[in-house]
């Protein structure tokens, strides 16, 4: 495996506990710039835990403790001097269930930039259009920017959440099963979008859909009971993995 190049994030020997319960065991994984990295594995194996730990979303969970190093451009995300707000701005997160704010499409997008100090109206309008275009949503909502985000379809809401993340200029976008609540057409749109997004951003995605992981990702990590069993190029993982267990899981022999 040659993948020392250009890692935006480098997860090094991470252990994580929820109270007494250890959920991650010595997990290591690189995340390459402008690539899609997928995480697969049976429910409860720690995919969400791992992806949440990348932007310190686990900080919000009581009793959660992390050991090991989580490097972002060579700096430890869990280091003492780290600004968590900045980390979450640079590393955005999309969840399974679209969670737009109960406000207008426009306000959903401009909320983040405003929080981060942008007040100029033209600048905000520019960010609004750019983010919605990048999320492949502009054409569908440009005439209803002041309508409630809740009136959008599930697929549109998910793309709105992606646009909202893009609005604060992140580098990395984490996605935790972003299409599992969507119909096939909305799912295809998100997949196409991800393929576009990696030209500018870096994506880490958790998915239960093997074909989806195979289609859209460059690298895949297979996790099992808190461990990273195998990490490699996606083609290798889905055609000829090194570990028997990976083969057995992907072909549905267990899990």
């Amino acid at each position: 495996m040659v993948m020392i190049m250009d890692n935006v994030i480098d997860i090094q020997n991470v252990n994580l506990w929820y109270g007494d319960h250890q959920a991650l065991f010595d997990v290591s994984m690189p995340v390459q710039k402008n690539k899609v990295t997928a995480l697969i594995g049976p429910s409860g194996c720690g995919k969400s835990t791992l992806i949440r730990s990348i932007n310190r979303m686990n900080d919000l969970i009581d009793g959660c403790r992390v050991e090991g190093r989580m490097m972002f451009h060579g700096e430890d995300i869990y280091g003492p001097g780290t600004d968590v707000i900045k980390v979450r701005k640079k590393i955005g997160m999309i969840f399974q269930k679209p969670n737009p704010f109960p406000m207008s499409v426009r306000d959903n997008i401009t909320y983040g930039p405003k929080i981060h100090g942008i007040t100029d109206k033209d600048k905000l309008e520019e960010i609004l259009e750019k983010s919605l275009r990048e999320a492949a949503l502009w054409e569908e909502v440009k005439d209803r920017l002041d309508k409630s985000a809740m009136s959008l379809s599930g697929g549109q809401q998910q793309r709105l959440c992606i646009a909202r993340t893009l609005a604060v200029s992140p580098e990395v976008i984490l996605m935790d099963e972003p299409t599992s609540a969507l119909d096939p057409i909305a799912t295809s749109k998100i997949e196409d979008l991800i393929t576009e997004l990696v030209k500018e951003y870096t994506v880490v995605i958790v998915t239960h859909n093997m074909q989806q992981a195979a289609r859209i990702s460059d690298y895949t990590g297979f996790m099992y009971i808190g461990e990273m069993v195998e990490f490699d190029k996606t083609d290798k993982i889905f055609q000829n993995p090194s570990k028997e267990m990976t083969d057995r899981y992907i072909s549905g022999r267990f899990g």
Partner: protein
Amino acid sequence: MRMKRFIEDLNNLVGTTNGFGNLVLSMAERSVYAMNNLDAEVAKSVMDDYAQVDYLDGLIEEEALRILMLFQPMVSDMRMVAVILKTITYMERIGKYCYNVAKAVIYLSDAGVKRSYKNISAMGELAVDMIRMVTETMKDRDITRFEEISAKDQKMDELRDLVLNKSVEYMSRDPCCVDVCTYFISISKFFERIGDHACKSAEKITYMVNGKRVNYN
């Protein structure tokens, strides 16, 4: 979880493919026997079997595509279905060459030829060996068997050259035997092609078993 239906369908596909392999192997054995003994009747049975080869080729292809559509197999399952799709094409071609050998045997027997060449018999034997390697490995996945297949293929090429040279020699000595010699040359060509297809099948089956790309030609 792997659906019960998927496991059943996959097993059936493998079973039919193995049956297909057995049929082609049996055709090869009979075409070689027919050639060694200039036995038109046995040759006829080989020709008759080709219809079944054609049928099974189509049937297995259809079934494999149906499995791809319904279950989208992954990793080793995917390699298996993909390799079955490739291998049946090679097997169908081998069946066709057996048919061609049989047809030539009937011609030779009608022309009153009573015996074959030693080198052609050797080629027939090699062809049968190579096909058997493929069909057996399809069943037990023991790819160590393929260690010898390149050597056999090379031997096949050498024998074909020998047959060709000898035939040219005979033909220039006695123009009356041009007809017969041409048929022998064709038969040696058919066996040589069978060897090539067996090698390609062996490469694919190796990929099926361990995911590695190899070259046996």
